[in-house]
């Protein structure tokens, strides 16, 4: 019963967002019921749709955790985009330069390179915060813009694929491709890696002392400091873990999906990551589920654009509305207490 009571405001918030967005769709002279039918059922009607949803779920979960893990300590990492891209660069660099290594070595090396490269990118912001107390929102965002130029540099540099029209590197070694779970339609073990990452994060923040200190720091930094927790170290640590998760998303993108580094690889995943993290109200364990829901919406949205010609941006508005209504429902609960 209490569980239902807890979920109920979320349910209302989602329904309210659907109604509001439905009015918007109707105002654009489209049929909202047809739109919602497509959005909600595409993922479950065919195996292809379901696998597409899982493929989207992987980066969404990871970039959302990249936001919520630092948020557990009270810090805002808006830089998952850059960390994911730099992770992808690291993964591609290893995949190209060590192309001839056997798969048992190369695949773990690529994944590790991605995680480390992403973590390094986050470390810059974390260190600036630790050393100079510079607001992490600003540095993580600015590093995003720097990473766009960096990926362009790498994709047009010595590894450039001259045959491709768009800035793209040559392919990584075939031994570096992530093993397949399902061949047709393609689903790699990336989905398992993301699930493991999500479980480890949950285990860490909820079941270990260090993770507890992290959460306490976020809940009340002053009290934590008084009780001997080195809160600045906690900030540093949580930012690096978050960034490493974003780097993992980049590595999976390179080694599992693209098999090369493509400029413009950053779609709107990281923005969605922020929305997912906030809808989950920063709760790490809720992130994978919210991410799945958003993946369903996203897959449905592209189907909707294809078949009904409704612009996909409508779904972004809907997601922002869900977030706003959930924030409001939070408030209502606070008032009732």
């Amino acid at each position, binding site marked *: 019963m209490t569980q239902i009571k807890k979920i109920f405001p979320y349910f209302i918030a989602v329904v309210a967002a659907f109604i509001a967005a439905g009015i918007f769709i109707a105002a*654009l002279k489209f049929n909202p019921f047809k739109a919602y039918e497509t959005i909600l059922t595409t993922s479950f009607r065919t195996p292809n749709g379901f696998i597409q949803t899982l493929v989207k779920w992987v980066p969404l979960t990871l970039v959302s955790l990249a936001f919520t893990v630092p948020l557990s300590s009270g810090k*805002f990492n*808006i830089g998952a985009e850059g960390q994911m891209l730099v992770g992808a660069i690291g993964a591609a660099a290893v995949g190209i330069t060590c192309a001839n290594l056997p798969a048992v070595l190369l695949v773990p090396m690529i994944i590790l390179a991605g995680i480390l490269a992403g973590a390094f990118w986050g470390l810059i912001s974390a260190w*600036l915060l630790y050393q*100079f*107390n*510079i*607001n992490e*929102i*600003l*540095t993580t*965002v*600015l*590093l*995003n*813009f*720097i990473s*766009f*130029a*960096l990926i*362009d*540099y790498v994709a*047009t540099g010595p590894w450039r694929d001259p045959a491709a029209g768009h800035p793209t590197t040559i392919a990584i070694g075939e031994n570096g491709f992530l093993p397949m779970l399902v061949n047709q339609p393609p689903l790699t073990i990336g989905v398992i890696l993301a699930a493991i990452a999500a479980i480890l994060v949950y285990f860490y923040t909820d079941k270990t002392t260090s993770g507890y200190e992290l959460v306490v720091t976020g809940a009340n930094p002053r009290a934590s400091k008084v009780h001997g927790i080195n809160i600045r170290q906690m900030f540093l640590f949580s930012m690096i873990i978050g960034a490493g998760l974003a780097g993992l998303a980049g590595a999976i993108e390179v080694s599992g999906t693209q098999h090369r580094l493509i400029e413009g690889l950053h779609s709107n995943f990281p*923005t969605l990551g*922020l*929305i997912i993290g*906030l809808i989950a109200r920063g709760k790490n364990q809720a992130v994978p589920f919210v991410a799945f829901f958003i993946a369903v919406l996203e897959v449905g949205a592209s189907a909707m654009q294809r078949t009904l010609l409704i*612009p996909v*941006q*409508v779904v*972004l*508005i809907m997601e*922002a509305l869900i*977030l*706003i209504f959930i*924030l*409001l429902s939070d*408030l209502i609960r606070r008032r009732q207490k």
Partner: protein
Amino acid sequence: MSGIEVFLIDFLKLTFLSMVPFVLAGQGTMLGGRTGVFNVAQEGIMLTGAAVGFLVGYLSSSVFLGAVSAMLVGGVFGLILAYFTTTLKMDQFVVGLALFFTGLGLSSLLPKLALGVTLTPPLIPTLPDIPIPLLSKIPVLGPILFNQNILVYLSIILSVLLWYVLFRTNLGLRLRSIGENPKAADSLGISVTRYRYLTSIIGGMLIGLAGAYLPMVYTGTFTDLMVKGRGWIAIALTFFGGWSPLPIMFGALFFAGVEVLSYRMQVGGAFIPYQFLIMLPYIATIIVMIFTFGKAKAPSFLGQNYDRERRTL
């Protein structure tokens, strides 16, 4: 005139031209922050301001109407921010981020709805230079300072005006006292809520106009994500300027100078790969923050909501 002189005059003229979005967004951020409302949605508000300013300007064939609409939309963002934080007491960062991607989504959606998908985007006329009689004839200074578009002049006037209001009038004293100690201000009968709404809305209007400046002066059209981080840089600029109008204006000149330098060197075919020149403004911003962030005199209650029923602050 020698070649280097021509280059310098051209460079400085462009720097003053490029200062405007930073000045407007920086002052808008500062104004809200002075009463404690920390807006972090600049990038989204500027994007929507750019899209709305361009669309209204194009559809009504009036750049002026475009600018006014961008300001109105920015003001609505400021109002929503004020309502959610000051009245509903929600976390300012969370609301700001939610508004950031609302703006991001709107700016990408609105042009598609209004114009459909077009291969050649329509253009609006860019703002003309208005030479000021006599002053524009002064050698060197004339072409740099007194032969600019109207918003360059207005942004300088605005900065001086804001300095005057904040530091030389009773109203300014009230605004500043709210950001420093809302409880004390409240106990003196100053309406914390009213002034927070006021500054947040006016701040949002300035940020919206900062966005509209980009299509109105630089490109004549709207392209997705055209703000390119200027909104975020404006936040850094506000800290850099110690939340004071005049230093913010000079800081804006610095960031504009770096931006112009970065473009000039890309065009000039420098030996450095152009991607590193693109990074220049962002790297400069981070370096500037290292030197100024710790010392910056931010308002004490920046980013914190005020609840008069709470005993402790």
